């Protein structure tokens, strides 16, 4: 299978090459800084010339991202980034198109574009900054906020049931879904590289901390005390192990996943489920995407990664087919086609 990656350049690019001259204006301590840094670490690894990178975004704190990248960038309107990115990619499939969204941007106002971009499987990389809150508008609940969350617009706690990005991706026939956290720069960089290498729509959900309006939203997963027990780092072809000494694992019990401990009740590593990110059938990916504390760990890493024909590949095939058949090669041919008569 061909790769999107262009010919590596003579002078390899560095992190610095991707940093723009604009002052970064996120709140001190915001998780977005770490994501930016992970991105500028990831891009030089891809061997793509800098001018071929395009960062598109919607509106929100997250969506300021393109201004801080020394690449082509377009900060568009709230929720519509996937649609703009789709146009960019179809207009020039050679470009490496990245689309940055907050949880409100992607899953509230832009929910429709989000699922349809994924459904079409256009080869863009969507990075979802999930802080479970509206940051830019100063703290209203979002479609990913947990029930009961007290925010400015839910003074008595949110009564709404939250979306889980991974479930939407899979429901929309997504081909790539990874989850990472802003406290793990290495994992973020790795996920961005994987996303870039995947051909088709890639969705990377970054659990991001908004220090101002929803501080500690992901603490249950990121805190030092919780980290080992509540983070499951999934890798294709590797058993689903976690915990301090990798002694805990997941196994399938009937149609359900369950947490087991190696060495207890006769459990050995052989009983542990091996992660197959490339399986066409998304059933297990969906189960992994849904896991969360306190009864389960949160799955991090590439949860789903399958190759399917992209939208632009399908269009190109179609174009080639029509071209060989068509009688018209220019607009002039078209004008003269069909019933034409001459007045002399």
């Amino acid at each position, binding site marked *: 299978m061909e790769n999107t990656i262009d010919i590596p350049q003579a002078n390899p690019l560095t992190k610095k090459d991707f940093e*723009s001259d*604009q002052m970064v204006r996120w709140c001190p301590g915001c998780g977005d800084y770490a994501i930016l840094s992970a991105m500028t670490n990831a891009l030089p690894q891809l061997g793509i*010339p*800098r*001018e*071929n990178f*395009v960062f*598109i975004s919607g*509106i929100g704190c997250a969506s300021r991202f*393109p*201004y801080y*990248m*020394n*690449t*082509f*960038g*377009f*900060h*568009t*309107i709230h929720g*519509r980034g*996937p*649609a*703009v*990115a*789709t*146009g*960019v*990619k*179809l*207009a*020039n499939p*050679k*470009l490496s198109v990245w689309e940055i969204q907050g949880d409100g941007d992607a899953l509230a106002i832009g929910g*429709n*574009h989000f699922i*349809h971009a994924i459904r079409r499987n256009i080869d863009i990389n969507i990075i979802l900054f999930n802080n479970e809150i509206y940051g830019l508008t100063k703290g209203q609940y979002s479609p990913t906020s947990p029930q009961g969350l007290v925010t400015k617009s839910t003074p008595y706690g949110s009564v709404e049931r939250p979306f889980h990005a991974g479930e939407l991706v899979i429901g929309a026939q997504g081909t790539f879904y990874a989850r990472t956290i802003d406290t793990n720069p290495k994992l973020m960089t790795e996920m961005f590289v994987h996303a870039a290498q995947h051909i088709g729509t890639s969705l990377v959900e970054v659990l991001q901390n908004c220090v101002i309006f929803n501080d500690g939203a992901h603490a249950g997963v990121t805190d030092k005390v919780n980290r080992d027990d509540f983070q499951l780092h999934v890798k294709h072809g590797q058993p689903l192990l976690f915990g301090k000494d990798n002694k805990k694992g997941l196994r399938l019990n009937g149609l359900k996943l369950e947490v087991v401990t190696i060495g207890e009740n006769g459990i050995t590593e052989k009983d542990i489920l091996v992660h197959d990110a490339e399986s066409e059938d998304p059933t297990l990916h969906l189960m992994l995407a849904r896991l969360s504390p306190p009864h389960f760990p949160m799955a991090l890493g590439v949860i789903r990664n399958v190759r399917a024909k992209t939208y632009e590949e399908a*269009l190109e095939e*179609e*174009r080639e087919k*029509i*071209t060989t058949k*068509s009688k*018209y*090669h*220019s*607009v*002039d041919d*078209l*004008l*003269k086609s*069909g*019933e*034409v*008569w*001459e*007045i*002399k």
Partner: protein
Amino acid sequence: MSETIIPSKKATKELDKVVIRFAGDSGDGMQLTGSQFSFTSALWGNDLATFPDYPAEIRAPQGTVEGVSGFQVQIGKIDIYTPGDEADVLVAMNPAALKSNLKFVRKGGNIVVDLDAFVLRNIEKAGFVTNPLEDGTLADYNVVEAPISSLTKTALEGLQLDNKSIMRSKNMFALGMMYWLFDRSLKETEKYIEDKFKKTPALAEGNKRALNAGFHYAETIEALPAMYKVPPAQIEKGLYRHISGNVATAWGLMAAAERMGRKLFLGSYPITPASDILHELSRHKNLGVITMQAEDEIAAVCSAIGASYAGQMGVTTSSGPGIALKGEAIGLAVMAELPLVVVDVQRGGPSTGLPTKTEQADINIAVFGRNSESPAVVIAASTPANCFDYAYMAAKIAVEHMTPVILLTDGYLANGSEPWKFPSTADLPPITIKVPHKENGTYYPYVRDVETLARGWALPGTPGFEHRIGGLEKQEKTGNVSYDPLNHDKMVRTRAEKVERVANYIPELEVIGEGDGKLLVVGWGGTFGGMRTAVTELQRSNRKLDFVHFNYINPLPKNTKEIFERYSKILVCELNLGQFASLLRSKFPGMNIQSYTKVQGQPFLVTELKEVFIDHLKD
């Protein structure tokens, strides 16, 4: 019913123009019948204009008024600008067709009916209480009761065809009658039939037989009036074809993209009456066209903006409700100063309104319908064929001035068609894309052309031109985000001025007439045909009035004010409550700008306009 078999050499009557309307059940093939009649007449050398009148329900029950499909064509030896107010001849294939179309027939006109269809069940289904052929309903008309169904059956006897196929040929019988009445040759339609039914010779033979049978039947009976002659018009030499407004729009956009060497990207969401542009462009992906049926109108316009940002010609097409959804994104294109063509095929509104009917009420949303100071170029096509020219101009202005351009057409133009002397693309005006430059090694995205004020179009993928744009206010020149009050003031004025300066690049208005400065009638967009016909007819009878028609709405042509100043009264006619008149009043305060409006989902009638103009000439 006449049984006369004696062929008679009838008197022929010469006419300047005549209107024929074909009406029948949706399944009766009236659109095809009408287009064949039009095509044959065009070859004969008539000028003409056509308008199909489809039922709003897709599958209305057979024989009901809701299921009637009509096609009107006006042919003439003089210039024809409209499909005509009233029909001189109506062909009604069943009672329902008669019921719903009688109002379109001139008193004293001819009505040809299929007598066989006037059985009790059909008469009742159509909503008549008694048989209209017998109860005096048609007393004011010359009615020809032709047993079209049974004669078609007889004519096709012996062919291996089932009853359904035989009955499907009865439209050809009716067409044959019309060919006799207007002294037309059957040749072109026979050729068409042979081609269409190449694979089923029996059907080809059946249709040809029906066509000829109708022709000879008409020749034989006494009931038809004199044979009409509509001599050829004085038509410019050249190659012609028929074109509808929507197809012309699609092709104009394609021609522009081809000329600028960019792909045409269409993001669109289906909506009546704009969908045919999407359909047409989707057929031409081999000619550098990319079409995407988006998930909604917002995605449609946003994908087009993305495509423009990446260097192709981004276009989105819709109608009123969709245009309302696109507002925020058009504002983004205003701010990002990217080329974008938005086609608005206007229909009756507000809300869902009258989806299949025409209206001109989107001038306000096009010019003003966005938040804040959000100037865009607005232009309007005025005939089905010149949708090609204005679509081309929309794309040309969009890239040469780096601005969104809204092209207004309407349901009447979109579905109407006319013969068109089509150009060779080499004769179309050139389109110049300015290559962006660096200043001392740095690229500034908001450096402007001194004449047009357009910024450069630097494309992703171009080394050294990496830059960021977006919907936040830009610092002049650098394009960096800026909240500076004076900079904002300057940028708002600059964007407005950029659009104003488009006036330096568009044609000036032309006055039709040599009046005495009393009355100037003004139209814009799709009402041109009716306006022009009404004005010309009055001018021929020595009435003193002049006419200008606007295709450029924002900015207005440069000589607008100077022309308006010459008249003591200006009468703006439009299919809304006076939106263009208001716009003109605000631009030219103190002038006597009056307004004639109508919002019935129908175009102006020529007779109606003539009465209005005569009234205005009185005082």
